């Protein structure tokens, strides 16, 4: 039996979300822009989904644009702020060192266009403070973009405080909330969020669909130009079935959030407590300010890939960082950003759990992790050196 513990990479589509999608593939398949009933019914469905999602974020329906996922939403938010900034001669952007690549890479592209990018330090615990943001804001700052929760180490940033600072200083504030929506309470008004990205497949909705919230009054720059869909802000025939699945999944996630997180947190804490017992291991990211489902450890003397492959053999699906960089040989930029040395950063394990997991699964995971870490250390020359005192332990 497989134990899926990589819900930060993607989730299983829930029965409810799938059920919400099904009628729109073969029955209500009309193009929402079409005049006839089949099309208008699709349009009504879209309006309904938009309204329901807006309510969950505490914004207005017209403040939500549907996108093809979280990456697209991030790219569009950053493009929007950059266009507005460039117009006013403001070309400074503040972010953090451990953002997702769907934020960092667009920022790098802007750098080539002459923007000045400040990446705030996230310190050992993987947290920035609102004061640090305030101090970094300059007269030419056009955007602060800081993720709600980190995808690797799960740390939750003080978004409300940062929002307050940005509002006071009159700077646009975007948050990549892909890991937070459906898992943490979010109120865009209360938190003074100007733009927010989300992605359905992180809360049991389908892959390939997401949304960007943009506060009314902000002139949104289109990333994909063409037809008049999404009020000219995002061209392309609307992905009606997947949008319906996203709305259903988001409703479930938000409505059951409290109940779920009690359960998930209990499992998470069990994992953290047990895995911490492995000698020369360290939890990455603040223990308190973290997502209910996130566990991330570094183990000295071993490398992550072998760990994952052997865990897979034992039926445990886990990751060593973000899924989308697994082809890379470099250690995670997130672990480096919290000060883990390269040699430690290579040996990381992320377990991300959800309400469908069970405590029995957690026990099996702990057993498997302990066995695999021990085995890999037994064949590691680094571990031999550490044991023999030829090298000093770092953790």
């Amino acid at each position: 039996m497989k134990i899926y513990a990589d819900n930060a990479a993607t989730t299983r589509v829930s029965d409810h979300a799938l059920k919400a999608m099904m009628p729109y593939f073969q029955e209500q398949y009309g193009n929402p822009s079409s005049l006839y009933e089949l099309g208008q019914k699709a349009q009504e469905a879209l309006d309904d989904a938009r309204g329901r999602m807006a309510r969950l974020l505490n914004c207005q329906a017209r403040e939500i644009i549907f996108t093809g996922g979280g990456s697209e939403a991030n790219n569009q938010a950053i493009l929007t702020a950059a266009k507005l900034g460039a117009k006013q001669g403001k070309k400074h952007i503040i972010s953090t060192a451990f953002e997702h690549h769907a934020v960092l890479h667009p920022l790098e592209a802007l750098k080539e266009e002459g923007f000045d990018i400040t990446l705030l330090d996230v310190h050992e615990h993987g947290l920035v403070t609102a004061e640090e943001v305030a101090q970094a804001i300059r007269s030419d700052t056009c955007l602060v973009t800081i993720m709600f929760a980190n995808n690797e180490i799960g740390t939750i940033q003080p978004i409300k405080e940062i929002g307050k600072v940005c509002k006071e200083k009159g700077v646009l504030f975007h948050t990549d909330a892909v890991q937070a929506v459906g898992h943490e309470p979010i109120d865009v008004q209360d938190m003074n969020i100007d733009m927010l990205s989300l992605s359905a497949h992180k809360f049991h909705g389908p892959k390939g669909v997401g949304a960007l919230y943009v506060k009314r009054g902000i002139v949104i720059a289109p990333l994909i130009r063409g037809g008049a869909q999404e009020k000219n802000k995002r061209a392309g025939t609307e992905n009606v079935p997947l949008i319906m699945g996203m709305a259903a999944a988001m409703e479930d996630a938000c409505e059951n959030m409290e109940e779920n997180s009690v359960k998930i947190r209990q499992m998470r804490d069990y994992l953290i407590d047990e895995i911490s017992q492995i000698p020369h291991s360290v939890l990455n990211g603040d223990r308190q300010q973290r997502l209910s489902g996130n566990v991330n450890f570094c183990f000295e003397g071993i490398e992550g890939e072998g760990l994952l492959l052997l865990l897979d053999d034992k039926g445990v699906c886990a990751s060593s960082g973000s899924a989308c960089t697994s082809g890379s040989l470099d250690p995670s930029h997130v672990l480096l950003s919290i000060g883990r040395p390269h040699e430690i950063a290579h040996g990381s394990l992320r377990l991300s759990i959800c309400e469908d997991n069970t405590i029995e699964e957690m026990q099996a995971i702990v057993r498997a992790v302990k066995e695999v870490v021990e085995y890999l250390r037994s064949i590691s020359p680094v571990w031999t050196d550490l044991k023999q005192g030829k090298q000093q332990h770092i953790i």
Partner: protein
Amino acid sequence: MALYSEKVMDHFRNPRNVGIIENADGIGEVGNARCGDIMKIYLKVDNDIITDIKFETFGCGSAIASSSMATELIKGKSVHEAMRLTNKAVVEALDGLPSHKVHCSVLAEEAIQAALKDYFTKKGLPFLTMPMTHRADCSCHEC
């Protein structure tokens, strides 16, 4: 698994010749933990024949599999034959490696060369490395 061939997975899951040789006749260690790969090879040589070989590896699945395969390929061979082991032979014996993992086979070749060099040096013999034009570059960005 699509990422690795059956052969790679077999050598990763059941690596041959894992361990340490006390009083080895030659020891070679290459790579570094920064890059995420370290291989250490121990040789026991009798009459120019590699009678025993062991390895320790810190690294990914293909690093462990490459070490295992490389040791298998030269175990029982003469040190001169062993010197001709190329990373290409390791890759072929493993039924291929993904392109971004080829550097693991290079490391295995280098580790064996290093162990052989240590053996020759200890014996006071000259050591002539093979020209390694066939080598894939290490694609780790850090080193």
